[in-house]
């Protein structure tokens, strides 16, 4: 046995087998082109010369000794900061399919050591819970057949849109209309909204591609898709463009970008779709935005009105506010006033057991336009693992109890609830969204899904990639580094956005038609939902089916 000091053995020593992803390299196929090492975003790959001893033993001869062979192979770094993230960029560029990462199915030891230098692990927003989500398990089981005819998803006309904005009770609407009084602004939008991802979190090319795609959906396809900016403002040219009407501007606790926005108001050609005031988000409830210095490029600094290359952590709360009452009074009304009460203003909160209290407060304020609840599976932003994994509230029960609470007050048509949190995380975006709608949501926001569907984000629920936060996105979706984001062609993103929404619309019809619904979005049509779990069925007040 050798002495202890002769082997590398520190508390943080790892072998490739201890890492979440292991690189498999086939030397026989390798051409030594080096592209894999060049493209690896975290620098885990190194081409290395290696020497191999070939024992030379011929029994009939007196010669003894060994021959030595050198070869070029791949070394995988076992440093925590340079671990393989499984993004697969190496196999994407390999001309000979000689290399690819493999997920380490054995519980990796890495997770015990990923807090080097006392800094807990952070990652891009993805909860990493593989398998069917609760939303995936909800089925639509009230099929129209003999008692009423099913509809033809391909031939009938469907009304798939939803409303964003405060809707008056009918009596009050008729009264105000007769009296010529103010009617709160209401937008008719597609119920699948591109959720808040900031200009700063997303690369300029990604953002441009999304906006182009959204404009195409609205102006050519007739699908009134809107997208939310997230905190961090909006490019000045967009603020002064006719595309602003497709954009929900977000204001959050750092107020980043709002100087630009307020200054642009007199020059705006149209009103924004809505204003979202962020009080919380799914990825890190109770925590503020976290844009790291390496993502604060010249452009981002300009938009946010800050120096270049500084960390931009938003505070967890709006410092000017003391309570929900104040918040509703001050912020919602101020924002409403800024656009002369023509733009819906609504708060976004994290999924929480306190969501109902927030909702009930909004109900009593005539200016609150909606409530957006972002569940625990939601978010794309940078967050500490502990926030992402264990803080928040799943969206289904949260939305359901808020909706039933509104029903009890007869106000379910007045304050629309928007839901987010894992919608489409396993690809079933329409099914997930429609399940939430039938539980009572008026619409859903989606972030991860749109990044994957429109831009080919590499993230999966098995902790693949998940480095949106460090500016090294191999696809150029969440990076401010031109070398990376030039990989992403905005035109192609726009095309994928259009394809995605066309497909969602068709799937919506395929869900609505068998239920015999086409005249209005089946919000709260809980009699059409079933799930194979008694406890969940009871909690959500839907049918247990088996």
């Amino acid at each position: 046995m050798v002495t202890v000091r002769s082997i590398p053995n520190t508390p943080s020593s790892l072998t490739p087998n201890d890492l979440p992803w292991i690189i498999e390299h086939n030397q026989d196929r390798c051409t030594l082109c080096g592209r894999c090492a060049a493209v690896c975003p975290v620098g885990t790959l190194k081409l290395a010369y290696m020497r191999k001893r070939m024992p030379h033993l011929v029994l009939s001869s007196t010669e003894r000794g060994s021959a030595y062979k050198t070869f070029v192979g791949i070394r995988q770094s076992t440093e925590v900061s340079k671990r393989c993230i499984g993004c697969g960029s190496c196999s994407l560029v390999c001309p000979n399919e000689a290399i690819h990462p493999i997920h380490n199915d054995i519980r990796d030891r890495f997770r015990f050591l990923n807090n080097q230098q006392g800094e807990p692990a952070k990652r891009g927003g993805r909860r990493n819970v593989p398998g069917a989500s609760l939303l995936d398990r909800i089925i639509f089981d009230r099929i129209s057949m003999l008692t009423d005819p099913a509809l033809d998803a391909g031939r009938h006309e469907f009304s798939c849109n939803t409303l964003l904005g405060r809707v008056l009770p009918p009596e009050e609407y008729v009264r105000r209309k007769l009296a010529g009084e103010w009617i709160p602004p209401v937008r008719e939008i597609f119920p699948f909204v591109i959720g808040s991802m900031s200009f700063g979190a997303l690369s300029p090319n990604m953002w441009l591609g999304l906006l182009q795609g959204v404009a195409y959906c609205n102006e050519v396809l007739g699908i009134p898709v809107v997208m939310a900016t997230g905190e961090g403002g909006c490019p000045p040219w967009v603020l002064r463009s006719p595309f602003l009407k497709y954009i929900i501007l977000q204001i959050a606790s750092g107020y980043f970008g709002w100087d630009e926005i307020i200054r642009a108001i007199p020059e705006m050609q149209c009103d924004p779709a809505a204003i979202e005031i962020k009080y919380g988000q799914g990825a890190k409830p109770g925590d503020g935005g976290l844009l790291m210095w390496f993502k604060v490029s010249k452009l981002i600094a300009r938009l946010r009105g800050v120096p270049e290359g500084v960390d931009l952590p938003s505070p967890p709360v709006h410092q000017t506010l003391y309570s929900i009452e104040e918040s509703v009074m001050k912020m919602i009304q101020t924002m409403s006033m800024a656009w002369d009460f023509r733009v819906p203003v609504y708060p976004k909160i994290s999924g929480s057991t306190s969501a109902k209290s927030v909702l009930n407060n909004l109900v009593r304020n005539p200016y609150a336009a909606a409530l957006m609840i972002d569940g625990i599976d939601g978010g794309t932003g940078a967050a500490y693992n502990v926030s992402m994994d264990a803080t928040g509230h799943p969206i289904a029960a949260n939305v359901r109890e808020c909706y039933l609470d509104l029903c009890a007050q007869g106000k379910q048509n007045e304050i629309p609830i928007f839901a987010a949190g894992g919608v489409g995380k396993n690809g079933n975006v329409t099914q997930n969204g429609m399940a939430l709608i039938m539980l009572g949501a008026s619409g859903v926001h989606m972030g991860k899904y749109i990044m994957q569907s429109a831009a080919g984000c590499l993230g999966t629920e098995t902790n693949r990639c998940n480095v949106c936060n460090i500016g090294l996105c191999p696809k150029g979706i969440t990076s401010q580094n031109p070398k990376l984001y030039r990989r992403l062609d905005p035109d192609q993103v726009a095309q994928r956005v259009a394809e995605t929404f066309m497909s969602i619309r068709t799937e919506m019809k395929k869900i609505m038609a068998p239920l015999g619904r086409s005249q209005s979005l089946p919000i709260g049509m809980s009699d059409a939902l079933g799930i194979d779990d008694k406890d969940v069925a009871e909690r959500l007040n839907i049918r247990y089916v088996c």
Partner: protein
Amino acid sequence: MCRLAMKTASEPFSPFSVLQAMEAMQEGYDGSGLGLLLRGLKFADYKYNAADPILSGIAHTEEALTRLDHNMDKAGFTLKYDHEYDVKKAMIEAQDRHKYILRVYKKPAAWSKLSVDQVEHELMLTRLALRADGEAHGNDLTAFSLWPDVVMAKEVGWPLEIGLALGLDSGRITSRICMAQGRQNTNYGINLYACHPFFIQGVATMTNGENTAFIPIKDWLSGRSFPGYIGYQSDSEVFAHILHYVTKQLKLPLETYKHVITPLKNEELAVHPQGDFLRGLRDACRRLIIDGPNAVIGTLPDETSMLVMDAKKMRPATVGGKPGEWAIASEMCGVDAMIPDRDRSKDFQPMREHTVIIPPDRQELQIWSQFDQFPIPQAA
């Protein structure tokens, strides 16, 4: 599917003629029940004052009848006429029908100080109290309506046989309006309350088809905190309540009912003379949008009759007649049975945009299109 028949005429006629029209359409229903509503009444045995409320229902036991007497007494009602149906019990499937109630009451003296709206509210509350009393005693009392000039009857069985069993062929009761529906609500559980027509404060509807948007509509109506919006043993009950809500609570003209249950599309509203008002109305009443397939036949307290369809799938319904006499039925043979001597070329089958309105004078049929302006100048 069930079959519907409605006749409205200036001269009172026997409900049995409408049941014969139901018989003409017998291939279209399963004969599981009959619901009947008569309006504009004339009794052979009694000179009826059309302002007096009439209670319709069933006392399933003697004890329920005694309780009913007691409760009506306590509420201040005075019994003026107790109509005895010529019941042939052997022809009725159900065994627990102690007495079919058709009683004319005099309103409580204390109500003379109340406004019309208050009286209507009190009448509804009294009916609901009777219903609740029945439900609290094992459903031994069923109260269909308590309203001036309206009689209702509901029973399980083949419609024509029920008519014979109740002696409706005798001509002792005649009316200017008769609505009949030929099926129990077999989409959900069998329950006498679930049988059409549905009635609330003088507003009545009956429907052909199933409303797939039932649950969200029911949830919204239930949240109105209006005591009459209860029941919902049938998905079709919401049609009566929406009609009540639009005409009685929002006080909008009858034409807007169609705009509430089947609003126009954006591009259609953009060119509608009242598009701005209607778009807002559509948003405000979004939870009341129905999703068919339905043909809705309704009658109002002033003896206006109406027929509308859902926006897409529709159920069959034809209207035909002549000045003074009109009939609406699920099938042409039903209209033929009720008014054989009419000009058939003028029969009309409404499409998705139409509301057929037969005004109380019954001189002509109004076919109002949703694309046309309606009379609400202040709002539009």
